[in-house]
């Protein structure tokens, strides 16, 4: 992987993390942890891998991005703002009455492709988009980001079998394996065991990476795009809250607030990453 690209994408990931902090605001509960853990992946998708154009949002062959773990939409909002879908200042209005930036993704927001927030439905929506792409002979790819806690939803596995049955090689699932769900650690709360093995067993082509190593992230996105005849899954080992030390790997920051001091500390740490 080209070192310049890696450095450039690291900067984009920084911008995404700073945007998450803006969107979260002060003294307002929000989903910091899961937004930070997928920030590198979201940055790599929007600024390196995906074909998309904020000036031509509805072009038929754009790649589709679905944040199936909709509560982590702050990362997507930050990326969309950075890409120019709406002004950066809009981030400050996240989750306020009448804002185009709601608590969970809605299609009214420029750049958002699907409504999510009830966990477990995004991959199925992705299957539908991938089927339509094949039908229309358009060569776009559908990318779906899922949470590791979310994988407990049975519907996820219905989508996994559907994608395999339809041999959807234009669909990639990315699992943000941060090891934490709402209440605690996935291994203590509801242990799903070997995730990669499960995708393998269902006929998916799988890749396992460090979701914060930008070179690995970029490589995996490229590799997944090359797979033919089967859907692909990237199992990304991540740290919940990545970039904000006091939130890292801490279940309490799944959905929590930052004080003014904490917000400033978070910004400083992200700048120093």
């Amino acid at each position, binding site marked *: 992987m080209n070192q310049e690209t890696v450095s450039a994408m690291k900067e984009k990931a920084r911008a995404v993390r700073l945007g998450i902090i803006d969107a979260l605001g002060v003294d*307002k*509960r*929000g989903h910091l942890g899961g937004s930070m853990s997928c920030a590198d992946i979201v940055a790599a998708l929007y600024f390196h891998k995906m074909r998309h154009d904020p000036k031509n949002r509805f072009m038929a062959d754009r790649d589709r991005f679905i944040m199936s773990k*909709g*509560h982590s939409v702050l990362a997507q909002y930050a990326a969309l703002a950075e890409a120019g879908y709406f002004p950066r200042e809009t981030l400050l209005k*996240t*989750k*306020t*009455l*009448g*804002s185009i930036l*709601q*608590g*969970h993704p*809605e299609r009214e927001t420029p750049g958002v492709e699907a*409504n*999510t*927030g*009830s*966990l*477990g439905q995004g991959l199925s929506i992705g299957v539908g988009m991938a089927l339509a792409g094949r039908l229309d002979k358009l060569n776009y790819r559908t990318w779906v980001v899922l949470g590791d*806690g*979310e994988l*407990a*939803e*049975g519907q996820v596995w219905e989508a996994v079998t559907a994608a395999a049955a339809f041999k959807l090689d234009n669909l990639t699932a990315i699992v943000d394996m941060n090891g934490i*769900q*709402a*209440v605690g650690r996935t291994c203590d*709360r*509801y242990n*799903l065991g070997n995730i990669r093995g499960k995708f393998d067993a269902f006929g998916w082509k799988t890749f396992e990476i460090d979701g914060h190593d930008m070179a690995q992230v970029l490589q995996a996105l490229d590799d997944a795009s090359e797979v033919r005849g089967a859907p692909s899954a990237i199992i990304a080992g991540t740290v919940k809250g990545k970039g904000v030390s006091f939130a890292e790997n801490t279940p309490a920051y799944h959905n929590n607030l930052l004080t003014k001091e904490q917000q400033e500390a978070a910004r400083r740490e992200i700048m120093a990453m």
Partner: protein
Amino acid sequence: MLMNLRAAYGEALLALAGENKNVVALDADLCGSTQSVVVEKNYPERYFEMGIGEQNMISVAAGLALTGKIPFAHSFSVFATGRPFDQIRQSVCLPNLNVKIVGSSCGLSDFGDGATHQSFEDLATMRVLPHMTVLCPADGIEVKWAVRAAAAIDGPVYIRLNRNDLPVLFDEKTSFEIGKPLVVKEGNDVALVCTGTMTSIALDAAALLEQQGISARVVHLGTIKPLCGKSLREALGNVRGIVSCEEHTIYGGLGSAVAEALCEAPLPMKMVGIQDRYGQSAVCYEELLECYGLTKEAVAKAAEALLKK
């Protein structure tokens, strides 16, 4: 005085679990919020963490009930009733099983998370199921009663809970009964028939109406189903009209239930509730109540308009 409904629920569930070894709790990764965590902490062997899988949770609860347990299955009301609707219908209600479904963070009360987390349809969807009892308490005292009442019923019960602090309206002496309307304020011109959060708002509306010389009766329905037309009619006294007040869509909820119960001898009626919309994010709960017309002013205005007709 305010009391947090979640805290009241946790207290009642813990007490119940202490008294009855058959009581078990299930949750789908929200036990800290729903308060089913009290069972996990105190009786860990009787708590089942089902992960984020509400459909499986409900059918597992059915299996527990079929083997003599009294399962309380928890999630936010939108996920507890919406995601597993078919499981509730087929696994639980059709065979009339002893499963209690507890929907927390109902209505607009999860203000920040927006439309996907705000539940305005659950009274309607739970109410249409034969065998189901539907409870919607107005304060912490009634929440505690509801937990016991639910356990005493041998069959499915849905309890709808707000997540916030709400004014205490009742005391230990209040005589709650399944299906019994409670007259919380006397009045002769108009009845504000209300449930859940809207009961304290209706009381405030009644005070506004008094100032304008309108005598408003406040009738709280903590049970949405079963609803007996005869006792409702008795509770209404001689009022000339009804304003139903609910933190729920006007389609199929409390207002509809009241209209159905009175349809053979109807009274003029207006419905205050959510007008066929989805929710949205806001920085506080009150802002949303205002935005969706669930205020004392809106209730008073509806009552005035009704009487003018």
